[in-house]
């Protein structure tokens, strides 16, 4: 009996939600303990942080503004430039005038992408700032404009390469099929290549947003009043450098972590089988699955909304096994277990009453514990 309990416990610990929860708790404990030690030792002042944490709200807003504007404009430029990079070699091979017209465009885009990726973003920011202030010294908020232009130039180069990779990874067969139904080249790009590529590159595009947001911290060098500037102000003018950088780290984390989680959630939610994102993990968002997985939805029993194991198995095998055989098959129609009485005194048949701590807790939380969930998800296969 004891060994069965241990086996059940160890299986439960393998469940992803439990693992996630344990990991998060350990992380939180580590941070709290570490900060408390630093506070006691006098390196960090909780009182100062508590009194001044709103100071960075304005800078955070400005950093977000600069990043979002640059990213969106860069995105717009990156689509045609990525297409030029991806399809350029093919066009250059043609033996007509279009190759000659296209050659300088391809040369410019390639040189641009190489230049942006081959120089530090810090240099780019200072260079653009120098040029912009020299050209229009009287412009108000000239630093912010220069910063946005520099970040736009930078992210356009990186996103160009992301789009190039995305366009190149859409199979040749897809294009041939598009042509075979009479689509023009631009239509094939618009309706086939582009939407497929976008799904394939969602993750690199999010990574680029994260990298750009962090790169925006360098705008402090041209006195844009963004997060990093705020941290330096706290350090230099208020005399709390460690507190300032700790606070700014917290701001970056609070902005970036939820963003990437939300995007990967949407990515999984909107996924198309066989394209881009892998099959959703068995966990959702932070960890707990509240409803039955989607591809089992047709097996939901109408009354409870839960997966009925028998219905699931019967439907799965119904098309391969004739009716008469099905009725007697032991794995589909298990012999009833011993009858007993549950807590309310009503008769129970079939599944043993759930008694473990975990399953009771899971019930209270409205979750299905791993043991009660029934058959594990199978690899997605085609439907018959």
């Amino acid at each position: 009996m004891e060994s069965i309990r241990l086996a059940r416990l160890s299986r439960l610990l393998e469940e992803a939600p439990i693992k996630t929860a344990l990991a998060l708790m350990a992380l939180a404990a580590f941070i709290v303990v570490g900060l408390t030690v630093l506070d006691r030792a006098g390196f960090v002042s909780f009182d100062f942080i508590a009194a001044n944490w709103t100071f960075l709200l304005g800078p955070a807003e400005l950093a977000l503004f600069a990043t979002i504007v640059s990213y969106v404009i860069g995105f717009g430029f990156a689509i045609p430039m990525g297409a030029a990079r991806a399809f350029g070699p093919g066009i250059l091979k043609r033996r007509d005038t279009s190759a000659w017209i296209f050659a300088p465009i391809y040369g410019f885009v390639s040189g641009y992408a190489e230049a942006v990726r081959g120089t530090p973003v810090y240099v780019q920011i200072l260079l653009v700032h120098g040029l912009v202030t020299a050209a229009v010294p009287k412009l108000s908020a000239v630093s912010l404009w220069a910063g946005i232009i520099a970040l736009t130039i930078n992210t356009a180069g990186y996103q160009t390469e992301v789009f190039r990779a995305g366009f190149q990874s859409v199979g040749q067969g897809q294009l041939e099929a598009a042509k075979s139904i009479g689509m023009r080249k631009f239509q094939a790009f618009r309706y086939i290549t582009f939407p497929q590529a976008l799904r394939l590159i969602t993750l690199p595009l999010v990574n680029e947003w994260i990298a750009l947001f962090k790169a925006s911290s360098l705008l402090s060098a041209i006195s844009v009043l963004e997060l990093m500037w705020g941290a330096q102000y706290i350090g230099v003018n208020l005399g709390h450098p460690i507190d300032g950088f700790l606070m700014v780290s917290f701001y970056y984390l609070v902005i970036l972590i939820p963003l990437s989680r939300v995007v990967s959630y949407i990515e999984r939610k909107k996924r198309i089988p066989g394209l881009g994102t892998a099959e959703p993990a068995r966990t959702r968002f932070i960890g707990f699955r509240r409803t039955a997985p989607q591809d089992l939805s047709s097996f939901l029993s109408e009354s409870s909304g839960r997966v009925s194991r028998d219905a699931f198995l019967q439907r799965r095998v119904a098309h391969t096994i004739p009716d008469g055989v099905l009725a007697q098959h032991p794995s589909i129609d298990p012999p009833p277990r011993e009858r007993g009485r549950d807590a309310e005194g009503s008769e129970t048949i079939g599944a043993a009453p759930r008694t473990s701590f975990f399953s009771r807790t899971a019930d209270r939380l409205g979750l299905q514990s791993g043991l009660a969930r029934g058959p594990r998800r199978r690899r997605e296969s085609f439907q018959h």
Partner: protein
Amino acid sequence: MIAVRGIHKWFGPLHVLRGIDLEVTKGEVLVIVGPSGSGKSTLLRCINLLVQPDEGDVLIEGVKVNSPKIRPEWVRQQIGMVFQSFNLFTHLTALQNVSLGLTKVKKMPAQEAEKLARYELERVGLADKASSYPAQLSGGQQQRVAIARALALNPKVMLFDEPTSALDPEFIHEVLDVMVKLAEEGMTMIVVTHEMGFAKGVADQVIFMDAGQIVEAGTPAEVFGAPKTERLRSFISKILG
């Protein structure tokens, strides 16, 4: 209906098609057989101009279509093509795969296109799979959707490039059934295949190609029953194993 006159095609130094002539009349089924690398697929691709022939003419209803004056997109709308590897659009459902050409190429209103697409899916026996994505379908089902996609544009001729070669044996017959039905309905078809049963049962003409040339041509009985050349005899014995 469809005629090919003296087609040559080079891929670099490789002379893939060495002067092909053939003619298919309306409602006829032409089966092309031959060892791999003999230029069968390239010939099909030349007919719908996915590959531009270097020499020779492709005529559809007497019009030379491989001329600079005619847009290849227009030609391809008249010709349905089914690929060995299905090539369904992976980001679209079965229904969207079929209706995309109607809305974007034929500029049909969305509702009308959907109705027609559903009808085409029903024709290939997949009305219930309209909302499935290609990755959720078996190979046979994917190929039937691909046939429906080509049929939706109401083509004058259908080209099949080894439509069953990438399929598991259990799914081959469902695709062949659809093709037999199409042939019975009077569709003009050019089929590259190794399915001897289909060729014998359905074809009006059979062409045996080798090394970019037509080696033998005739009715199935002539070509399979009384092969004249050694090359065809050895090919048949290999195919029948």
